[in-house]
């Protein structure tokens, strides 16, 4: 046992060293190869000013210096210190915030400042590895984080101190609120965070929320107020102490900052021109910056990390709620805040990676380890398995499997084959003449090397390209937002369908509802109407100019009901809303029927008992109906999710730019389409990726419904 513990400790140390090396290496590569980005010239100029102050010893100037005063000075001061060993250079020119990146910065200054940033970035990854080595690994390779902590940006230092603040708070929490030292440290680091970049203070809000939840659970809210105030006071004190610019006229300068933010976020041209939808931060989390500069970003699997974080979210809440709360609060803040620059996601990538580590452990590691231990038990048992009737099954299996393989498996295998080539509508003749078999066979047997081709493929002869198309297609899917939209659509539309379906089912379940049967038949109409026709009916309502709504508004003015939806085609939020209106319409009846079927199975006795105890309607729902219904509803939710994930006809019919993977695959394929057409190979690649995602969905379905074991429901 002791040996085992020692072994685990050694393993931990080893894992942390690996994470440190990996994070350091990836960041070093990034900082030496990344082009100069927006703002880097500004912060370098600010750093130069501080370097001058340190050299001349003109300490009074410290209180008057803060170039780009919208951000507090601490991170800039640290950059200034990093420039001290270097020879002095002329001050970088002052340019407006909207100016493009200045590529002519002094290289040595740039490098020193970037190294400083990357050191903090690496330390953050090491810190995360202390909590969870897998999470640390994720943060080490997280591409967006890597990019912004390897440049002269204000992200690395507050990212590091905010995590330290969270750590200290958790230590205090673990010690049952007794060790005040940790609390003081938590306040100290929060103050330092605030003195580097304000937005990172979301960790402070998360701490307060977590703290209050805990206090409410323990019914000790009054007891908690004093420590919270003390902790807050410490962080404010530290903030002012670490912020020399605020030493003179603190209130005035604070006001100046707040006013700046208010006007920047609503009037700055670059903010308005970007025109991002409110969910843009999620798009970043589901994409990577690889395509911006492919040579600098070595690993780009951010979407995968986000997916693991989603998978691990629930168990993280139980394990250590602060990280989950932190991510939620940071995300909601980023949704509301009108400025949507990509670097802002760094405020939540550290907790995100911790949660992703938890997700990885839950979904990959622990199933594997439990499988191993089960294998051990199985082996030790005797091999007396019940006899099976393979012989009797063979006459049925042989034709059945032949058909299934011919119609289902072979096409899929063939699709994988096509995905390894550059087959397209120009090479169609060669392809049909056996070119695909020839190339895939010689490619897989090593007779030919993968050829280099450029997208879109227009070669006249089929060529074997290996798996080359996979990474670029994956990047296309993430960067064009298609992958994100696909998941976002699935989650939002199915949630709304489930909600509306459940509401309808509960309404109709009541005793003696007037016209019950009539309502029921009416509500299943959308389900019975073919999806394509339902979508066209909605197009008829929403079409710009000629649709029902547009006609109504042009005739009756803006007082017409739902006139706020007019012009929906101009913004991605409104497009989403209109698509959701149509998608939920089509999907909710299925959920209503599933919920009704589930509700019929709930025993009446429990309700009678609760009525005797005087439970009201809401309490009955919350404590009886919902917990008993949920397991019955989950298979339906998963099946609807799969349908929503594959949804195609709605998007094909509705004139928006939004597409799911199925739609993208179709449009890449279609030889007579308007898109980048005839890209048979790319379409096959997208299909293989889709199958990969569906495997995960079906695994979840299988777990919840035991579908393949033949026992479900009730």
């Amino acid at each position, binding site marked *: 046992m002791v040996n085992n513990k020692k072994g685990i400790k050694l393993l931990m140390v080893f894992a942390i060293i690996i994470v440190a090396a990996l994070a350091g290496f990836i960041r070093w590569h990034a900082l030496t190869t990344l082009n100069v980005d927006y703002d880097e010239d500004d912060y370098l100029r600010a750093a130069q000013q501080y370097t001058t102050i340190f050299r001349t010893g003109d300490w009074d100037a410290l209180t008057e210096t803060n170039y780009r005063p919208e951000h507090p000075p601490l991170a800039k001061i640290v950059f200034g210190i990093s420039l001290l060993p270097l020879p002095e250079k002329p001050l970088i020119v002052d340019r407006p915030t909207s100016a493009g990146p200045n590529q002519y910065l002094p290289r040595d200054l740039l490098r020193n400042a970037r190294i400083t940033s990357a050191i903090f970035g690496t330390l953050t990854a090491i810190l995360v590895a202390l909590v969870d080595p897998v999470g640390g690994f994720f943060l080490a390779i997280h591409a967006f984080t890597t990019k912004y902590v390897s440049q002269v940006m204000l992200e690395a230092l507050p990212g590091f101190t905010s995590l330290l603040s969270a750590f200290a708070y958790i230590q205090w929490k673990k010690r049952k609120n007794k060790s005040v030292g940790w609390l003081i440290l938590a306040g100290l680091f929060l103050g330092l965070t605030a003195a580097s970049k304000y937005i990172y203070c979301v960790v402070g809000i998360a701490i307060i929320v977590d703290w209050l939840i805990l206090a409410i659970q323990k019914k000790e809210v009054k007891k908690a107020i004093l420590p919270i105030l003390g902790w807050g006071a410490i962080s404010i004190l530290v903030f002012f102490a670490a912020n020399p610019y605020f030493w003179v006229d603190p209130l005035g300068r604070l006001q100046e900052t707040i006013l700046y933010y208010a006007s920047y976020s609503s009037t700055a041209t670059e903010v308005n021109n970007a025109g991002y939808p409110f969910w843009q931060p999620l798009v970043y989390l589901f994409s990577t910056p690889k395509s911006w500069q492919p040579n600098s970003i070595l690993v780009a699997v951010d979407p995968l990390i986000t997916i693991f974080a989603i998978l691990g979210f629930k168990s993280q809440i139980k394990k250590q709620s602060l990280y989950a709360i932190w991510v939620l609060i940071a995300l909601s803040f980023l949704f509301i805040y009108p400025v949507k620059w990509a670097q802002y996601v760094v405020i939540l990538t550290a907790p995100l990676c911790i949660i992703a580590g938890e997700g990885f452990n839950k979904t990959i590691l622990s199933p594997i380890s439990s499988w191993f231990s089960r294998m051990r038990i199985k082996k030790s048992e005797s091999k007396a398995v019940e006899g099976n009737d393979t012989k009797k099954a063979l006459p*049925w299996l042989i034709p059945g499997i032949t058909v299934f393989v011919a119609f289902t498996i072979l096409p899929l295998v063939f699709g994988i084959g096509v995905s390894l080539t550059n087959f397209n509508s120009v090479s169609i003749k060669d*392809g049909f003449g056996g070119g695909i078999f020839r190339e895939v066979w010689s490619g897989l047997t090593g007779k030919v090397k993968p050829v280099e081709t450029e997208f879109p493929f227009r070669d006249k002869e089929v060529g074997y390209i290996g798996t080359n198309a996979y990474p670029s297609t994956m990047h296309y899917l993430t960067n064009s937002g298609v992958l994100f939209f696909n998941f976002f659509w699935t989650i939002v539309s199915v949630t709304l369908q489930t909600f509306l379906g459940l509401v309808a089912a509960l309404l109709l379940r009541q005793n003696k509802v007037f016209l019950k049967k009539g309502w029921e038949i009416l509500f299943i109409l959308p389900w019975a109407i073919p999806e394509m026709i339902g979508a066209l009916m909605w197009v008829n309502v929403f079409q710009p100019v000629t649709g029902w709504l547009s006609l109504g508004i042009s*005739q009756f003015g803006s007082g017409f009901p739902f006139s706020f939806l007019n012009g929906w085609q101009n913004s991605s939020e409104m497009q989403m809303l209109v698509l959701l209106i149509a998608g939920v319409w089509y999907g909710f009846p299925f959920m209503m029927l599933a919920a009704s079927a589930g509700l019929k199975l709930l025993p009446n006795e429990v309700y009678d008992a609760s009525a005797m105890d005087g439970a009201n309607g809401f309490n009955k729902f919350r404590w009886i109906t919902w917990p008993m219904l949920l397991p019955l509803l989950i298979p339906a939710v998963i099946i609807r999710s799969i349908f929503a994930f594959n949804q195609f006809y709605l998007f094909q019919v509705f004139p928006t730019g939004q597409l799911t993977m199925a739609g993208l695959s179709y449009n890449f394929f279609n030889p007579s389409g308007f898109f980048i057409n005839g890209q048979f190979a790319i379409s096959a690649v997208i299909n293989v990726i889709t199958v990969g995602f569906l495997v995960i969905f079906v695994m979840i379905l299988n777990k919840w419904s035991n579908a393949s074991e033949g026992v479900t429901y009730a």
Partner: protein
Amino acid sequence: MRKMNWLKQILTQIALVVIGFYVMVPIWGAIRLAFDGSLKSRPVEFRLFPKVFSLEPFFTVLDRPYQSVDFCQLLVNSMIVSIGAAFVALILGASLAYAFARFRFPGKKPALFVLLLAAMLPPVAFMTPLYIVLSMVQLRTTLLGLTLVYATFALPFCIWNMRAGFQSVSKELEEAAFLDGANSLQAFWHISLPLALPSITIAGLIAFLMGYSEFAMGWLFVSEAETVTLAMSIYAMVQSGNAQPWSILASMFIIMSLPIVIVFAFLQNTLLDRMLFISQKK
């Protein structure tokens, strides 16, 4: 349970009216167009009811809704393709479904997983290989080719659901037949198949609907006017814009949906079970 009081009844009815309004908006939007005899092209004014009530659009549709193709031809094509696909899928899938329902054999669990996965794949996942293979054997632009395409989409789903049907027939009945000297094919033919027929029909119905309402793959594979189906013609009419009165399009929506709506209203619970991939109700 006691009867609802009137306040609760009113609140419930209000909520139901709101949902009903949501359900009816697009449907009514199509209905009021379909019966409007005054439309020459796209609608130009907002109306809740047809300006000139008329059944003319329906007659036009039933005669010649799209270019030179007549309705009967479209309907026949649709029926050939979707009934054909359903039959092909049912017949080809039967033996595997029966094997899954009746026998234990090694690899059954992973095989069921693959089957379930295949049933969940979007049609586009089969598009690339089918397009290539059918082009190679020169069947791509024919109705037979389209039938095979839709049969491929429907096959995994049909196998899964027929399996459920066979499982619901008790094994003892077959064993009794064996005692009387029947072989396994006879037992299947005379006992399991007739008893499982209702659920097989449902599986066939869903397979039929897949083909009946499919248009995108159809246009990918088919290019000649003689092989266009009803659903495909609707999509083509939408794409052609304002060339003909919208009332024709809307009445086609209704003609195409009405039979399905009736079937769904009668079979809602059974269809739900099949679409939930429920295999045995205990």
